[in-house]
């Protein structure tokens, strides 16, 4: 095949590398030798039943958990080891969005977004406010600038949380079941924002229950089962011909 023009999402040097990761909570082994790669611009969906370790995996990638074995590298930073100096660097390159939004309840929407810009990136308030306006328009919430989190619907709060992460201009965005706490109609507005992000070429890893979203948006699907990567592959391929009984059962149950 002539290499004149590579397809947009052809595997390049991976931006996220997970190698043989082991994570234990006491005697419980939650991740048992997990590994996969995500290339820049790719959207990876991690799916699986609850308790399969998928959220723990994402938290390890975000550097929120320390791992007992293996390695995780994100944007060239070594993650997952306690006291890693790369942690601070990692924060600049990776954004995380939580299931429970985790907005700061005592701050306005705008201040939620500008807090890290002024404290971490040392931007002026004006600069930061301009950036906040930019990302708020991206998620369609320009008019909620001065509102407080409790005045917003769950979907709106989650969009603010996404905007808050985006403002720091991360290279990779992590989404941890971001629509699980939302009603269906609110889920749609959050997924729309995420799809829009994917179209703009953001590298994303999302733990999700939304199979429709995974099929539509993800380039790569990682099926987790019993702390292991049970199946992995390009989305269309994987859904068309599951190799394991567990995955076909899972897909069937989610439909």
């Amino acid at each position, binding site marked *: 095949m002539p290499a004149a023009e590579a397809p947009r999402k052809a595997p390049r040097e991976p931006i996220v590398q997970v190698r043989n990761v082991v994570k234990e909570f006491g005697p419980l082994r939650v991740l048992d030798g997990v590994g996969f790669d995500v290339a820049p611009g790719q959207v990876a969906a991690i799916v699986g039943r609850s308790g399969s370790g998928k959220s723990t995996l994402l938290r390890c990638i975000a550097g929120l958990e320390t791992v007992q074995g293996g390695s995780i590298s994100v944007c060239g930073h070594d993650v997952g080891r306690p006291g890693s100096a790369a942690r601070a660097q990692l924060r600049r390159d990776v954004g995380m969005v939580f299931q429970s939004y985790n*907005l*700061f309840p005592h701050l306005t929407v705008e201040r939620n977004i500008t807090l890290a810009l002024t404290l971490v990136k040392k931007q002026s308030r004006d600069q930061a406010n301009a950036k906040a306006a930019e990302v708020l328009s991206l998620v369609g919430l320009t008019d909620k600038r001065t509102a407080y989190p409790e005045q917003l619907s769950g979907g709106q709060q989650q969009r603010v949380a996404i905007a808050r992460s985006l403002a720091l201009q991360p290279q990779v965005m992590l989404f941890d079941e971001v629509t699980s706490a939302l009603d269906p109609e609110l889920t749609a507005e959050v997924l729309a924002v995420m799809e829009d992000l994917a179209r703009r070429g953001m590298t994303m890893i999302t733990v999700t229950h939304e199979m429709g979203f995974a099929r539509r948006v993800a380039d790569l699907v990682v099926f987790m089962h019993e702390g292991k990567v049970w199946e992995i592959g390009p989305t269309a391929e994987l859904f068309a011909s599951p190799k394991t009984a567990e995955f076909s059962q899972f897909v069937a149950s989610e439909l």
Partner: protein
Amino acid sequence: MSYQFDFSFLADRWPDFVAGAWLTVQLTVVSIALGLAVGTVCALIRVYGARWMKAPVGVYVELIRNTPLLVQIFIVYFGLSSLGLKLSAEVSAVIALVVNMGAYTTEIMRAGIQSIQRTQLEAADCLGLTRLQTIVHVVLLPAMERVYPALSSQFVLLMLASSITSQISAEELTATANLVQSDTYRSFEVYIVVALVYLALSFLYRFGFWLIGLVLFARKRKLGTAL
């Protein structure tokens, strides 16, 4: 009952009461500010500190909360001076009040800090905030907002309790009253006046803390709801 109330001493002694009240305000504002600082640091240690730091803070809080302020004041003023550390009555008063206030504030602020969910810390961590930045911007302010009613009651209680420092003749309102009382022999009337001045001060303090709360907690000012 044929008692004749006589408040005529007020005609030329009222400036004493004003001066005494002002001294009490100075004494207690300093003690509240320092006590809040001590209590906040101790509360942070109690929640986030290493085990070897938590234990002494726990002992401090229990010792102070289970002994009378009067005895604490005596230990600081008479006790320390007998050990060779001579402190003025006013300095001793401030030290005793700060130590006392710090212990109560520790417990109040601890409850506030514990009410901040771990996920808030994770969110701040993911945004790249340092530990100190997280504590200041994400933990302390909302924690304080949550316990502000308890905190301001404690501040008012401390203001009232500062009257006890009159027992070592620290210069404040009650000591002033004791002086006027011994000059005029109108004990009952003098203490009625002083009670009213304290009552006025306690309302003033409550109003002041309410105002400070408005300035400090913008969200509360706008929405009026509890955090």
